């Protein structure tokens, strides 16, 4: 199918042939990524850019946390839940993480059913993914309100010590929550198009996979936020 020219070099030494072939494949005409949907390529590049945004946020958070002189709150206590008088550390966040990771599972199944052309299963799984996402955001709202109302944490103030705790927590989880909310909206739009048979007529379910890429990315970012905020 692909007719690619191999650059054969006879010079001794220099760049190894395998590397030359790799560069030759990349540099071949028309498309670097053969038969890859333009939107999919673009989504990957966007996610690379977005990675830099989250990395900048998290690296800033880490430098702040290691340089502040005021004490940092004990995360196990702050993020614990009181269940029937027993304080369970990290309970809420464990459920949130579980919900979000489950949503990645349903998303992956949706992509699979999409490529098999199973319209209804795809749409249902995407709606399930969106519901998981919405659950995650609602639980985040609950966590925020607990921190603000019960613990008295504010962006500019934190009764347990360093003011940067509240500031960076609200900023970074807020930015992530915004990503999840946008993802939920995007999933619902694509799901409704799937349901109405838009992609059957086009014969192309790539949009499901592109939405899925974004969703998995948001999920992956959460793993880092979880590790840096709750486990550190």
């Amino acid at each position: 199918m692909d007719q690619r020219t191999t650059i054969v070099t006879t010079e001794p030494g220099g760049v190894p042939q395998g590397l030359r072939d790799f560069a030759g494949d990349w540099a071949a005409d028309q498309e670097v990524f053969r038969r890859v949907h333009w939107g999919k390529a673009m989504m990957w590049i966007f996610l690379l850019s977005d990675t830099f945004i989250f990395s900048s946020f998290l690296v800033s958070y880490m430098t702040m946390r290691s340089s502040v002189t005021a004490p940092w709150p004990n995360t196990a206590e702050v993020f614990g839940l009181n269940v029937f008088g027993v304080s369970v550390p990290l309970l809420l966040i464990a459920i949130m993480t579980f919900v979000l990771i489950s949503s990645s599972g349903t998303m992956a199944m949706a992509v699979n059913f999409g490529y098999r052309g199973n319209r209804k299963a795809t749409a249902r799984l995407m709606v399930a993914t969106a519901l998981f996402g919405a659950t995650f955001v609602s639980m985040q709202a609950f966590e925020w309100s607990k921190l603000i109302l019960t613990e008295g944490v504010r962006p500019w103030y934190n009764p347990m010590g360093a003011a940067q705790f509240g500031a960076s927590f609200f900023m970074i989880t807020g930015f992530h929550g915004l990503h999840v909310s946008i993802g939920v909206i995007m999933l619902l739009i694509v799901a409704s198009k799937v349901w109405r048979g838009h992609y059957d007529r086009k014969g192309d379910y790539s949009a499901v996979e592109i939405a899925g890429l974004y969703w998995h990315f948001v999920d992956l970012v959460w793993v880092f936020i979880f590790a840096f905020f709750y486990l550190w």
Partner: protein
Amino acid sequence: MATIADDLRPLHHPKSWIGKYVWSQDHKVIALQYAGTAISVGIIALVLSFMMRLQLGFPGRFHFIQPENYLQFVTLHGMIMVVYLLTALLLGGFGNYLIPLMVGARDMVFPFVNMLSYWFYLLSVIVLLSSIFVPGGPTGGGWTLYPPQTITGGTPGSNWGIILMMVSLAIFIAAFTMGGLNYVTTVLQARTKGMTLMRMPCSVWGIFVASIMGLLAFPALFVAAVMTILDAVAGTSFFVPQIVSMGKLTQHVGGSPILYQHLFWFFGHPEVYIVALPAFGIVSDLISVHARKNIFGYRMMVWAIIIIGALSFFVWAHHMYVSGMNPYFGFFFATSTLIIAIPTAIKVYNWLLTLWRGDIHLRVPMLFAIAFLFTFIHGGLSGLFLGNVSVDVPLSDTFFVVGHFHMVMGVSPILVIFGAIYHWYPKITGRMWNETLARAHFWVTFLGAYAIFMPMHYIGILGVPRRYYALGETAFIPPSVHYVNMGITIAAGIVFAAQFLFFYNMIWSYFRGPKADPNPWGGASLEWQTPDTPPTHGNWGPRLPTVYRWAYDYSVPGAAHDFIPQNEPPGAAGSRAPA
């Protein structure tokens, strides 16, 4: 699948005037919208710079320039020139116009997103300019917008100006991301048959790598903007420590100003190359076309662009030698900074070797390209001084720095932009500009740039600090400095006036200029081979061109003409066997 590049259906063909020229999805119209907006806002920045010069050359004579106005002019001038003019014009303007034409595509891969990119850009410009009219005026914290200065009382615009500036930057970043994703994906996925990456003209390479860099560097600025806005609005302490401001303790506690500087320069240094790399690419093409010679060492030129782009992410803290960061950082960043000189020097030698024994036509675009070589080499050499920690420390925050960066990333890219506008104007408008006006514009601009910025190096070495409203009576500043400043201001006035020759020439020629040849310079790259001049929507008529060779087949021995277009099949009349 949307990957069939020759499919005409995805193109959105509007019928109404508004659809064609306002809400247009045609990359060429979007490019002109970008360029028009960028140049308009650039004129504002030009006026601001002249006001600063008026104050510096004739201190106290102009009562409407108060100290706080001067700081606001400095800030707005710098930010507009770097971000809203150079970045927008080189990537949004030239990137949009040239990429699809040079790689043989009908349009960008997602024209609608491309259109949104422009409208977000326009919105960011409007937000920025609106800060002039809010209470307190625009921010006066210097273009680097360092906290705590920018958001604590006493600095002009610390109440509204800084917030609007940061909001505007965040919107600009969103706009750039939408555009940049399009540029990168178009280069990767939408090239025409035969257009391998190593057959692309250097212009596309420069814009392509700069777009990737923008997508990776602007995030740091976005984060810095968000955190500054929160510090100013929500009272957080990301960047502002507890300090006494206007005789009162601030509400902030424990923030790190150095963190802002790291974030800012992680964006700021790649930004220099986001501006420079497209200029490098474009100037390579100008030199090659007008010297009727292939670019010397094409592969090396491409790799140098890539390596400069990659290295530029590891040098940012050379802007922070005097910031109080760990001194060992200075050692690392001085080393990486000087390593960048190697690929950059490769490029300069290759430009000179392209000129060597070429059939040089000193047309106006070529004059600007050669002028770029002068200013870029001079600006690069003063960069060697500033890249070394021990030499940089006494020169920091003096006019030497101002002279350096204006030569290397102000004048140099602007000269390339002028050259590029003269070079592609016949293709864009279908008309030719006036030669006499263009030459007059060139000589005044080129020599004037030296008259303005060379003396700045001298007064910088004397120790004259930058960003000062007035020097006053200071023992270490000799009276000659005041005469130098006056001279710079007069030169700046002349250069400022000369730009109107350019604007007049461009506007007059658009309506009255003689009809231009579709390929007046004998260019081999694809954009000169379009069936229509100016190219119509869809660019290529019914069939996409097929590319058989690289973009630099000039003066090929045995060929009938002194250039062979990229889309001329091998064995066709006058060409030689494929390379």
